[in-house]
């Protein structure tokens, strides 16, 4: 259901040959998006609230063992399994190709989370606290989600909005590289690249044509907006 009603189609490339798994993106995302602090108990129940996680795979056996990292965030699928199941249209597709979530519409059926093959939607099973004065760090750009609401990666939509406003006031299109979600901005190795896939000359579009590209669980036909580039190493060259 690709409808080019916008000149932008936001996408990302994750270069696994650059990614070292350091976790800077995870904290950047948490800081930018008011993602809740989860204690030990909550995480032991599998209810961590991180929008972006780094999967670690062990391949092989000692001494020929390798660890591989895979940053997994919302893939912003063009045929997103989470969207048609939402009874209240909280999960929807925006004209820029973003897979949006309207928090004040969400009634907490968790259908979307259950239908997501990437397990990147997180549900507020609890009310979360920022004991004073920790609440000062909360960003005023983002709603703080309460119990019973599903939340997920937005590609830092607040940054996209800001850039759009800036561009509009200057009567121009958004430049390549002008928007960076918090994760891509902080990534020390530049493994995450964000940009407009609809512009064939953007950095992200060029990288997404790399022969190393693949998409996560491609066989499911979800058409994600995130391309991964295979890691190198002997077994992959």
């Amino acid at each position: 259901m690709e409808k080019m009603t916008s000149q932008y189609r936001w996408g990302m490339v994750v270069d696994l040959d650059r990614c070292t798994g350091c976790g800077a993106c995870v904290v950047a995302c948490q800081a930018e998006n008011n993602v809740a602090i989860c204690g030990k108990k909550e995480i032991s129940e599998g209810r961590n609230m991180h929008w972006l996680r780094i999967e670690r795979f062990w391949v092989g056996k000692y001494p020929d063992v390798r660890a591989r990292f895979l940053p997994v965030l919302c893939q912003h699928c063009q045929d997103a399994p989470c969207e048609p199941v939402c009874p209240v249209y909280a999960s929807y597709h925006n004209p820029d190709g973003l897979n949006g979530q309207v928090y004040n519409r969400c009634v907490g059926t968790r259908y979307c989370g259950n239908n997501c093959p990437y397990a990147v939607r997180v549900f507020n099973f609890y009310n979360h606290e920022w004991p004073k004065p920790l609440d000062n760090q909360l960003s005023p750009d983002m709603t703080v989600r309460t119990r019973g609401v599903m939340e997920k990666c937005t590609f830092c939509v607040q940054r996209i909005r800001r850039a759009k406003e800036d561009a509009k006031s200057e009567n121009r299109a958004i430049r390549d590289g002008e928007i960076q979600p918090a994760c891509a901005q902080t990534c020390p190795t530049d493994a995450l690249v964000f940009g407009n896939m609809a512009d064939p000359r953007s950095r992200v579009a060029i990288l997404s044509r790399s022969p190393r590209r693949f998409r996560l669980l491609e066989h499911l036909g979800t058409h994600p907006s995130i391309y991964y580039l295979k890691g190198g190493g002997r077994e992959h060259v």
Partner: protein
Amino acid sequence: MKRRTFLQLGTIIAASAVLDGCRSKNEQLIPYLIPPDEGVTPGKGTYYASSCNACPAGCGILVRVSEGRAKKIEGNPDHPINRGKLCARGQAIVQELYHPDRVPHPLKRNGPRGSGAFTRISWQEGIGLLADKLKALQREQNTNGLALLTPHLRGTLAELTSRFMRTFGSTNHVSYELLTPDLLRAAARRSFGHPSLPYYDIAETRYLLSFGADFVENHLSPVKYGSAFGQMRQGRDTVRGHFTYVGGRMSLTAASADRWMPAKPGSEGALALGMARLILAESLYDSGALAANGLEAKKLLAALDRYDLPRVTQLSGLPQGAIAEVAREFASTRPALALAGEMVAFQSNGPESVRAVHLLNLLVGSLNRPGGIYPDAGFPSGPENSFAELLALIETMHGGNVKVAMIHGDPLYSVPPATGFHDALAKVPFIVSFSSLLDDTALHADLVLPDHAALESWGDVIPVAGTREPVVGLMQPVVEPLFDTRQFPEVLLATAHELGGRMAAALPDESYLELLKGAIRKQAGLEAGVDFEATWVDLLQHGGSFKGKSSKLTGYRWGSDAPPPLPEDPDFAGDPKTYPFHLIVYPSTAFYDGRGAPYPWLQQLPDPMTTVVWGSWVEINPETAAELGIGFGDLVEVTSPQGTLRLPAVVYPGIRPDMVAVPLGQGHGGMGRYAQGQGVNPLALVARQGTKQQPAWNATRVRITRISGKGELVTAGHPQGSLRSELVEI
């Protein structure tokens, strides 16, 4: 106009007339439901440039401030160290500022030490108390009874503290950090005649060979070298740099390597020399480089005679073929670069092993060349054995000769108990702590004079390494101080003022800001008449001064009197029969040496290799674990000649079967609600090596026993990854 275009245009015009501007089907279907900005109101923030002090790397940061509150920390794109990038620890220091358990005002102890019973006092009273104690020392002519213990300081603060101590008349000023690169400096001094740390040109190299240097998570300047690593891999069109890692535990850095060589702990130096010998024997060396450094291949080969391949194979426990292959690849790929890191340096034979790696760089002509190593200009001459100074201070404290100890940092946590520091400190009658959280040291202090958070402070931050030009980053307060706290240097100035006499004369500055501005002004070397205020504002806006003159260092050259590196056989505390495993303590990715532990974001950040959150663990090879009947998450007891700890086990495929590893950073007795009681401090296990004045944190042996199945280990992911790896094609 073509017929098709005409029809399209017509349709669009008609549609817009009917639908009144609706653009997509979504909006027709659910008009009104989508609020204009998806519930998002992008606010305007103000960005302030400052510097990060969460580790010695000294990255530049931009802090987004809105409504007078710090919201988000980002990398400063102008800063030559991190170029707009930042690690997890750096981003979390906003939680230092807003930590709910910060010490909000000065405290005086009113219960037994360690009980945490304090009464609130005023700053006047606090500084008065300290000054009274110091005055008493002056009266008794016992000025050496004052000791100051700080982390490694650079720049204005270093100068202020040393002036304070010098004028007071005390020689007991010790700067100590657990993960200090002292040994790397000492090795450089011995090989090259000056103690500059190496600067690695990772971005331009084609073959990277790391001996226990974990540059992705903590070695010298992780953001800088992480970024360079990305460049090395995919930043060049036709070249993908190769990376081999040597070390018994697969660290986060090693996980990115193409080849992992799990050498026996302490054998890394011998391995490097084995490779060097092979390169010499097969004439793969750079003869020009050898001549330029005044070395002769024949003589060197003779000196390294003992390191023949079979012996090195036996010492390192690696396959002979692999060693030879790596040596040949390293010598035949130019430029190639070898690194030596903390995991090697903290062995009993560490310094010589580091020098063996220097020799490898020399042999392939990688000294002072693009893609090789240069002397670092960040902080060219630093301490070379602060551990010996610490031991001397401990001795003095044991003798009861220290009456007042002023402590910045948390040495009760970060000094291994095997040094006797804990008992020695207990003998000091008056302890002053400057911690902003009640950490282990502050809990034992008699007086707590809480420091500002980094985001409330002034200062200059000089990166320890990672640059070839001198860099001075500036710290500025981005918000109003939250509590009734005072910056550590301000307290020193106020105390000097209170003491009067010589002290007040030597430290006349009204405020630290004034002192700092004076120092920066001197550095800028402005001509008379130039308005410094404008320069100062400009420097603050950019986060510091990055246009330093190119380094005066001439480059590394093998010292004419430098002996060939000959690491002795590694020595371990504990007898192999009782204690069959080598213990490795390594800085955790999230907490470094424990400084990151109070911040909930970092506690919640899954450890990249194990995905463990909120706790410590011990890593055990799957085979070893099976032999001992230990399963993933079981509670085990780790015993060394020094101590015993109980913690959960992680079955870890990337570690030698004769080794176990415990991350540093957890196990605080205090430090606020998020750190307190999480995990254990592995330094309790570390034993000392006889009387050696050298930090050999990784030279202890341990034994392991399973206690129960209840380790209370929490991992964020499935131990094998949540998605099936063959499905995600990884």
